[in-house]
Structure formats: C-alpha cells, structure tokens
C-alpha cells in the first residue's frame, strides 16, 4: 500500500494528539495576539490562550458559524496581509450573502496535500488520467481537485462542468481512469453516454469516481457502482475549510480527516456539548494550520458520526461517516433529535412505499405528535384493508426502530405528495405555527 505522508498517516493516536495539541496551542496564541476578531471572541468567552493546557481544552474555545463570515464580508477576519494572499474563492451565496475565502500559498499547499493523501489512499497516482468535472472558478471543487491530482503525478483532464457529450468523447479518447464530480452529474453523464451508445464500463477506462459537493446515499453508491462499473468514493469539504478536503480510502468506510490539518469534534447541536465517537451530531472542525482564514470550532451544520478506530487501511486519522443531514433540518420530537434523512433512508428499505414523504408535527396536549405521510406503491395496493393496515404498521414499526420515537404513518395516494428538492418543505411543523 502506498501512503503519501506515511509519517503522519500512520502516526500512533497518542502522537497525533500531542501534535494536534501543539498546533492548537500555537494557533490560539497567534489569533489571540494578532486577530481582533478572535481576540474579542475569546474575551467574550472568558478564555485565554493559557487556558489551553491539553487537547480537550479546545472545548473552552468559542464556536464559529457561517454567519461570522457573512457578517465580516468580504475579508474583515482574514489574518493574512494582502501581499500574502494568493487566491480567493467565493461561495455561491444561495442561502444568504456570499462568503469569501482567502488563501496564502501555504494554505493552498495544505489543501493540495490533503487531497493528494486522499487520492493516494484510493490507490491513484502516476498514470491515472483524472477528469475533473467539478466547476472551475469561484467554486472550490474544480481547482481543489485539479491541484491535488497534479500533485500525485496524475494527468488532469480539466473538463469542468457542462457539454456532457464532449466530456464523454474526451473521456474515451484520452483514457480517463477517474472522474471527479457531483454524484448527480455522474448519473447524468451515465444517461447521456447510454444515449450515445457508450457503455462507460466497457467502452472507457473509467474505474473510479470521486464524488461529493452534495449529499448522497449508500444506495446511490451501489447504483452508480453497478450501473457504471466503477468504484465510487465520497469526498467532503466546504469552502470555509478550503474546499473539498477529505476522501474515503480504498476501504470506502468514511473519509479520513487528517489530524495534522483538522481537529474534528462531533457536538450536540442543541447544547454544544461534545459527543462520543459513534454518536450522531454536528461536525465541528478546527483547521489547525490555516493562515489566511483560520477556522476554530467551525460548525459546518452537517450531521454525521465519527469513528476514531484505526482504519482497516492502517491510517490512524479519525473518520467521519457519510453526512446524514443538516442541522437546519433537525426536528426535536419529545426531546429526541430526528432528521428527515433518517426517515428517507428507512423508507428506501420498505418496498411497499415510495421514497417521498411528508412529516407533520403537532402538539397534542403536552406531547409532540409526529405523523409521516408516505405514498403507497401501485404494486403493493391490496383490496384488503387488513393488508394495508399491515403495511402501515410495518412502516410505523420500522420508523420507530430507526428514530426511537413513536410515529403515526398515514398511507396516501401515489403521486399526491409534493415533490421538492430541498428538505424544508417536507416538514410541516405546526408547533411553530
């Protein structure tokens, strides 16, 4: 097995934590001394760099949120001088004002290193032709993977997004072995290829997909792998952390979050308290070595679990398992956190009902009452009320097991639920009306 940075990637956990502590300590000192923003934040929280005496003292530090970047648009909290900056990326701003991220050369190197390690852990390297079909430009996806691919000595085919037929021709003609794009774009490529009479599995050398920048599921992974005859790997990041940063290794069992780059915490989004490995909570990341825009305890808003066991591949960095939802989507039902994505995952395993659903939450007396409306599949319709009741009870039972909360299920006619891309419209919370 080839490792990009064997010393770091296989470092024993205890050493990793010592290294993280040193990096954290110097980061906090630097920010307290030189950044008015962080200085004020720490004062407000009544914490001084001297209070950081061990790694777990990171919990004393204040959180950062996306709004901190928006409120300080475009560059008020940068900690590098204009002369030190070598690049900007700008987020699309679909959920508010855009956010600007600045990079020093060291920041770009760190980002590139992170991707180089990830691509190496998948088994990529010299001789691979990596087609980067993420957008190039203000979005971080294209350039981030581009530099990572070049760093490992692979050949980059920088197709960016769009013009799908040409992408497929070039993939064939230049022998692309890897594609980096969103899972939905890859599905689109697969459909267009089929129409062109091209079988991606047989007529190209494509073997690997590095997919991310939008939520996807294990089910989608199986579908992509079976249909297109490739291995599909999850990649994770956000522009605030630099861009796409962390990938799964060949084990496909969660993405490795390199310990010298990032300190990962999973916290309870309600209380901010740290959770144990394996518990589901909000991904919170401190980037330990960033110069232009350091992020301390940045609450990304994604929900996932962390696995701190050494990976089967031998790498020691903790892994984060597939993102399961967004904090904004979280519902609290009788004190239990419920994510619409959990409901979606459960429904996918029940053939009698469709995947579309609607959640209605009401307060009945002092108790929260959750109803899930699901569409009965045409093939599962039985004329007997008894059969239908059984289907409903089964769905209720399965949802109760996965959510740990009582659910009433309502069977509705197929096609009757509204179709929306976003999660927000799937929830009708009458408690807040």
């Amino acid at each position, binding site marked *: 097995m080839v490792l990009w940075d064997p010393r770091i990637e296989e470092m024993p956990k205890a050493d990793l934590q010592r290294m993280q502590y040193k990096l954290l300590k110097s980061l906090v000192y630097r920010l307290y001394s030189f950044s008015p923003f962080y200085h004020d934040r720490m004062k407000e929280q009544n914490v001084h760099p001297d209070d950081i005496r061990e790694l777990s003292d990171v919990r004393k530090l204040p959180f950062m949120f996306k709004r901190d970047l928006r409120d300080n648009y475009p560059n008020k909290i940068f900690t590098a001088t204009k002369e030190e900056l070598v690049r900007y990326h700008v987020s699309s701003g679909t959920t508010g004002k855009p956010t600007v991220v600045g990079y020093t050369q060291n920041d770009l190197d760190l980002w590139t290193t992170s991707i180089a390690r990830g691509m190496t852990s998948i088994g990529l390297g010299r001789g691979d032709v990596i087609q980067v079909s993420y957008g190039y430009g203000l979005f971080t996806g294209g350039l981030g993977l581009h530099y990572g691919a070049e760093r490992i000595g692979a050949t980059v085919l920088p197709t960016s997004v769009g013009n799908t037929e040409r992408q497929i021709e070039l993939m064939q003609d230049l022998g692309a072995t890897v594609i980096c794009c969103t899972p939905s774009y890859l599905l689109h490529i697969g459909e267009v290829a089929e129409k062109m009479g091209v079988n991606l599995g047989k007529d190209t050398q494509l073997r690997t997909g590095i997919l991310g920048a939008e939520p996807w599921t294990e089910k989608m992974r199986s579908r992509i792998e079976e249909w297109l005859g490739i291995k599909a790997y999850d990649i994770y990041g956000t522009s605030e952390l630099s861009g796409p940063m962390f990938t799964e290794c060949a084990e496909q069992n969660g993405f490795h979050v390199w310990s010298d780059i990032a300190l990962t915490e999973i916290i309870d989004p309600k209380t901010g308290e740290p959770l144990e490995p394996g518990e589901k909570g909000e991904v919170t990341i401190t980037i330990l070595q960033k110069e232009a825009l350091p992020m301390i305890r940045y609450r990304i808003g994604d929900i996932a679990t962390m696995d701190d066991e050494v990976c089967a591949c031998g790498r020691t960095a903790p892994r984060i398992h597939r993102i399961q939802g967004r904090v904004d989507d979280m519902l609290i039902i009788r004190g239990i956190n419920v994510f619409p994505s959990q409901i979606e995952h459960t429904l996918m395993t029940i053939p009698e009902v469709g995947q579309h659903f609607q959640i209605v939450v009401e307060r009945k007396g002092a108790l929260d009452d959750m109803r899930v409306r699901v569409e009965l599949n045409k093939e599962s*319709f039985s*004329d007997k*009320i008894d059969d*239908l009741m059984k289907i409903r009870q089964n769905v209720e039972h399965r949802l109760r097991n996965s959510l740990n909360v009582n659910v009433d299920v309502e*069977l*509705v*006619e*197929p*096609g009757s639920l509204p179709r929306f891309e976003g999660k927000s419209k799937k929830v009708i919370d009458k408690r807040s009306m």
Partner: protein
Amino acid sequence: MDTKKFVIKQISVFSENRPGRLAAIAQALGEVKVNILAFSIAEANGFGVVRALVDHPQKAHDKLQSLGFNIAFTDVIAVKMKDTPGGLFEVAQILGDAGINIEYSYAYSGKGGAVLILRVDQVDDAIQQIQASGATLLERTLFH
C-alpha cells in the same frame, strides 16, 4: 364445471380519507361513460378502499390509472337473494353451512331483485359450494 362465468371483476381504488376523493373517482367514471352498478367504501383510519362493480371495468381501470389512482381488479361473486324479509338470512345461512369465509361483502337491491356481492378466499371452491347448496349465482355477463 366452468366457474369462470361467475367470476366478476370488481374495481378497487385506494383513496385517502379526505373530502372530494369520491367525487374525483365518480367524475372520472362519468367522463368515460362508465356506469356504476354497485359500490361500497371500506375505511380504515386515514385511508379507504372504494370498491365498485361497473359495466366497463377495463375502461374504468384505464381512466383512473391515467389520473394517478392506485387501482386494482378484484374477483368477486354475486349471489341472488329474495328481496323479502329473511332473504339475506337464507343466503347467509347457506354460506355459513358451507363453511365459506367472507372477507367482505356488500349488497344492493333494485328492479332485478336483491344481490349480495362477496369477496371470498377460494373463489372456485365457493362457487361450487354455493351452487351445490341451491343458491343462485349471477353470471358476469349480467354486469359486464
């Protein structure tokens, strides 16, 4: 014995329990000139199944399906009853004595007499036993 001629195609439609659903079904059938001969609604909490005997089951099926309804055919049988006091008792007793288990049933009475529509587990068995017991089954050609 040919039992097939007694097997009647009923349409069963899944429906949410909310205002206007029956009207939507009835309107659709009216539009394609399908006549409803008998019908019933079975309801459970939140949803129901509309069951109907119609003169053109396939036409009804296609129309409702095109509108997105969840619809299926179900085999039922129809037993003639006397339209007098005790008529239902007579037939019900025959069914009971024959050990026929009824899943559901509904009835109508009109100018052609009274009819009991039955959904049973073993259609062929039931048809033979009902005939053997002396009751009269109605042929499907009477309906469609």
